[in-house]
């Protein structure tokens, strides 16, 4: 009986917590010599987001409506500068991205795709997306596909 109750409690907690994001939930962390800067829902709320259509490498070949904060805004908020950023994913995938990408292109940390919040299962909660809808020359470019890292955990600025 106790176990059933416990079971139900856990289930209820999960049901409540899963679809609704909390203000202090960490999406990913900006790391640098200055320390860590957790990018929370509140930070994103404050910075604001942009929305555009872009390819989601690793999903399919269709354009998707993506939304999220500009990486350069995030980095500015974190107060970090550098030449490259090492992006690390939850599945331990790692890739180096030149910081110039963020200043010359509207690269975002997508948190929503086609109106749905991204979860770990759907390659969230944050997915670096290049504006391939606007810059079609970037489409299918292995360099940019490799940099479009999902399940972003850390952005280590060097």
């Amino acid at each position, binding site marked *: 009986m106790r*176990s059933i109750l*416990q*079971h139900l409690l*856990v*289930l209820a907690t*999960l049901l409540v917590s899963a679809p609704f994001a909390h203000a202090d939930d960490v999406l990913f962390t900006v790391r640098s010599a200055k320390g860590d800067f957790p990018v929370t829902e509140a930070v994103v709320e404050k910075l604001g987001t942009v929305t555009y259509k872009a390819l989601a490498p*690793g*999903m*399919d*070949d269709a354009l998707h409506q993506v939304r999220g904060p500009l990486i350069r805004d995030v980095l500015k908020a974190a107060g970090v500068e550098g030449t490259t950023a090492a992006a690390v994913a*939850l*599945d331990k*995938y790692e890739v180096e991205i030149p910081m110039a990408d963020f200043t010359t292109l509207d690269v975002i940390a997508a948190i929503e795709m086609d109106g749905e919040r991204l*979860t*770990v*299962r*759907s*390659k969230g909660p944050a997915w670096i997306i290049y504006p391939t809808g606007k810059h079609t020359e970037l489409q299918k470019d*292995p*360099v940019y596909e*490799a940099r479009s890292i*999902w*399940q972003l955990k850390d952005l280590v600025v060097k």
Partner: protein
Amino acid sequence: MKIPRLNASGLLWIRFPAMLGLLAVMLVVGQDGVKKVADGINLRLFNSARFEEATRSEMEFNDLLNKAYRFTQGDGTVSREDVRFALDIFWSRMDTLRTASYRDALASGEVRETAIVSRVFASLPRLDAAVLALEAGNPASYKQVGDFAMEFQAPLLEYSDRSYTARRNQLRELVEKERQSLDDLRSIQIEFVGLSCLVLIYVLVELSLSRRINRRLKVALEDKRRLLASDHLTGIANRRHFEEALAEQSMQGSFAVVLVDLDGFKGVNDTLGHAAGDHVLKAVAEILDSLRLEGDIVSRLGGDEFAILLDGSRERARHYAEAAVARVSTGCFFDGKPVRISASLGIAHIDDARMGATPEQMMRDADAALYVAKAAGRNCIRFTTPDIMAMSHRKQALQVEIRSAIETGQIDVAFQPIVSLADGRVTSLEALVRWEHPDLGLIDPHELVVAAEQASEILPLTLFVIERACNIRSTLGACGRDLQVAVNVSPRLLTLERFSDAVIDVVHRHAVQRGGLLLELTEDAMMDESETVLRNIEHLRDGGIDFAVDDFGRGYSNLGRLAGLEFRRVKLDKSLIDNVTSSARTVDIVRGIGRMAADLGMDVVAEGVETAEQFAALQSLGIPFAQGYHFARPMKPLLLLPFLLGKPLPVEKRTLRAVR
């Protein structure tokens, strides 16, 4: 001489296009290599993650199982959240691997077991429920997850292994590609080196070609220079070369200017023909050249004149000259026949030259010395002496001044009356040119004519005299005296095409009647009866101008010529008149000529009558006319007019200086 052609090799023109073509080909090949290398890089980047992710799926599945197991075993270090997170990661992986792009990528690596992914994904909700049912510290709650593992672990491992192998193969291929790229890079490098070598070789070839062309041009220019500087007949230097060398000759050095003139060369040409003449010139040139030493210039100035710029002492010049005269005088053979020839030499050595002399002056001095050598009987040499140089200098001065002397009136004309021996009347006048030089005094008329001829002023001088002659005729005509005026003409003028026109022009301007002007030609004036001379004489005669033979009886007197050309008058030379009172033989000759002339319808005038005895003798011989001091000296117009219009003859007053 053959001028070398610059495009000696027919293939040369193609070398530039060929070079460009080769360059283009090598560039294209190089470009191809670069493209291959770049494609290799792209391929390397392509989906290296795809196989890795497939391989990871099995690890992630094991991680999930591991965590689930430990959780149910009551391992406090593993929370429900950890298990759930591992499931989410696995879920997401399966979701990714089932997409078309991953399936295709894996299929390209011979991974055929992709169906397992779809099966696993389809079963994920079941796994989700199993994970949800896990209870911490309750090993029995692991059963559902364990069943799931039993079902899928083996095929997932298979799938993962396959992907791993595919990845390894891919990596091997990438290494192959890498090596290929390295080879491509190396061949690009070789191509680049080849390209550089090609360009280098091309530049070197061009350089050597241009050097060769340059050398040939130099040779051609040298040949041309030699050709321009040499005499075409004899092969020795020509006048141009000699004059250049002379102009460059330093007056500090020791040298001599030697002029050579062949004696009797005209005779060789006339009697043996021009071929013989050319042969003689070649032979002489050979002799003069054989005596040449380093630094000497042996040249032919033209005709039978040679000039040598001789290096060294006066003694050497003498040796050279004597050897030349000796060897030339041995003569030569033409057509197996001996040709007699000799040479006269004039030598101006720097040691004899005056202070401040120029090479040109030395040339004139040598010419004067040559003149003296000729006068001394030919076949000899003469060095310049102070006298000769003075003479040369004087000649030069006269040549230079002659034009201005005409313009300033230094050169003037006097007229000597010719009288009829029968009644003492003046019947005509002879115009005689006079040059009263301010420094040199009165110039001998013969010297004046020679100077005028050498200065190319003889035509203006003669026209000037004719002009004056026409003037005096007009003046006298106005006073009622119509007198013929005679003017001496240098034989060379008749060889000028425009001579007759120029004379007739003057005659017309002064409206001189026919027979009003008479031109006196000396015997040797008729040396050359060329077409031009005959045409001039004919044209002048048509223009109403008479001709006279001057100085008849001096030198050769060619009676045949007298008959051939219709002369109006013959003038007996003064040498005959001088002897007419003393030599019976001369008397006979004078009488004979007088009769003959009369028979030919010519007037006879005795020149240089100075005494009453001569006058009487000539009268008795029936000579109709005479001129000379006995009657009147040459007079300037100012004295002539009162003389002609007033006093009767003979004149006793001798106020004027005689010029002949």
